[in-house]
């Protein structure tokens, strides 16, 4: 434990290299708990890289090197005494392309719950409650309650993405990371997922990466603008879109590059 800032995610001097290519430069960020924070910036600015290092997916590549600290609720997740499985449990991640497992809807929701050990002692009816609760939270319950044993891969993309969010919830994660969760969805699906984000707001700290500036504006409390591996600006979303402090931010928001 260090300072005890109470921040959901805070980084100090985070630098990240893919081999010899430096993707993040001295990132110092504080993501507040319980709200939705959006990360925007042009392709290759490091926003996805940042997101992926918060639940330590990047290190699987093998050639990634990191200096500095990433603290999640005041604990350095790259510390030596940190159990990776617990990081993955507390920090859930949603991807661009929905990636439900090729098993039933029910088993998808229970997957994390079971691998983290809660499933073994739970009775069938407890499990049913877990499934219902998670699917209700993502506003999917009414659509799938009659076919919980159907293959999850047969759902529509929007439903799949909601399911991918739902399966994170039974283990009660503290942080949800979303890497362009709507980019594979049509406008209606996007709207539904954004609606869902507001439902989840307050219960989880949400960090969402998006290419879609309108989405960042609609669906976040705070906004982080990144450019070439550096954080340019981090303020309340309204402020950023109305009165950006830096010229780069303004130019990006107005679509002069990106």
């Amino acid at each position, binding site marked *: 434990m260090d300072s005890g800032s109470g921040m959901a995610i805070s980084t100090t001097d985070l630098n990240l290299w893919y081999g010899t290519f430096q993707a993040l430069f001295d990132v110092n960020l504080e993501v507040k708990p319980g709200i939705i924070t959006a990360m925007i910036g042009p392709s290759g600015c490091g926003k996805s890289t940042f997101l992926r290092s918060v639940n330590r997916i990047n290190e699987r590549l093998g050639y990634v090197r990191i200096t500095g600290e990433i603290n999640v609720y005041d604990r350095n997740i790259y510390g030596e005494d940190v159990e990776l499985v617990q990081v*993955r449990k507390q920090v859930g991640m949603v991807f661009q392309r929905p990636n439900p497992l090729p098993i039933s809807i029910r088993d998808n929701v229970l997957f*994390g719950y079971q691998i983290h050990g809660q499933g073994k002692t739970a009775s069938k009816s407890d499990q049913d409650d877990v499934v219902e609760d998670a699917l209700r939270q993502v506003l999917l319950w009414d659509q799938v309650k009659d076919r919980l044993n159907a293959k999850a891969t047969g759902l529509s993309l929007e439903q799949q993405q909601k399911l991918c969010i739902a399966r*994170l919830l039974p283990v009660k994660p503290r942080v949800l990371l979303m890497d362009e969760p709507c980019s594979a969805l049509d406008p209606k699906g996007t709207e539904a997922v954004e609606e869902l984000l507001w439902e989840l707001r307050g219960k989880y700290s949400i960090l969402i990466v998006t290419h879609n500036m309108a989405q960042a504006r609609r669906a976040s409390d705070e906004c982080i603008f990144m450019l070439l591996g550096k954080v340019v600006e981090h303020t309340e979303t309204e402020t950023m879109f109305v009165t950006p402090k830096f010229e780069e931010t303004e130019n990006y928001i107005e679509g002069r590059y990106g």
Partner: protein
Amino acid sequence: MFDATELNQKNERVEKLFRAGFGLMTVMLIIPVLIILTTLVVKGGSVVNFDFLFQSPTNGMTAGGIFPALLGTVWLVLVALLISVPLGVAAAVYLSEYAPENWFTRVINLAIINLAGVPSIVHALFGVGAFVLFFGFGTSILAASLTLAIMTLPLIIVATRESLQAVPYAFREACWNMGATRWQTIRRVVLPNAISGILTGVILEVSRTSGETAPIMFTGAAFFLPLLPQSVFDQTMALSLHLFVVSTQVPDMPEAVPYGVALVLICLVLLMNSLSIALRVYLRGRKKW
């Protein structure tokens, strides 16, 4: 506009020529199969009946049935499977799911490919040296099955590894990102989705194993035995060797008998193959992604 030019017409002719040529080659593939099957049915079909399948040979194998050989083949195949399937599947899972990409893995892969290329008679001699003599199993079902198992290991490893690799990587990542360990991922997602391919490999191995003669000749199969084997340490008769014996070693053999034995053997193999195809079609129909 839109009329065929001379070049179009020429391309069209070449196109037709190649299509017909390749089609002809494909049809020619079927011809040997048809000839073999028809010959066997015509010449051997008359002797194959219930008694032929379930009675022992009599009169110096010129009469009676082939039951000890049929049973022996089943024994050999079953024991070989019990050895090679766990070993092969475990090795394939390691290679596909755990092994890092380094020189050691490459050496193992090379070894597997080489093992697949070793002629069966060499496997037979290895079996004699290793299992019959060194481990002291004698000429027995166990020694023969071990030899068969080693011979078919590459088959099962390659089939298993390929079906594991066919499971999209995204599924594994999805599991790992939720905190699942490798083994949890393998058991809950990868294996259930690869099982059809693994079973196909197993059945192909069965059909290959049941037809092999050389590896079992010196290690456990006998020309003729008056008694059925009582344990895996006994010798046994086997269909493939029996076919060899009745075709070449026994004087005054009625012509229909070897053809009958061959017919039974080939039916057994075809049955296994169609089972494998049916299973694959069935299991593939159930998965969607």
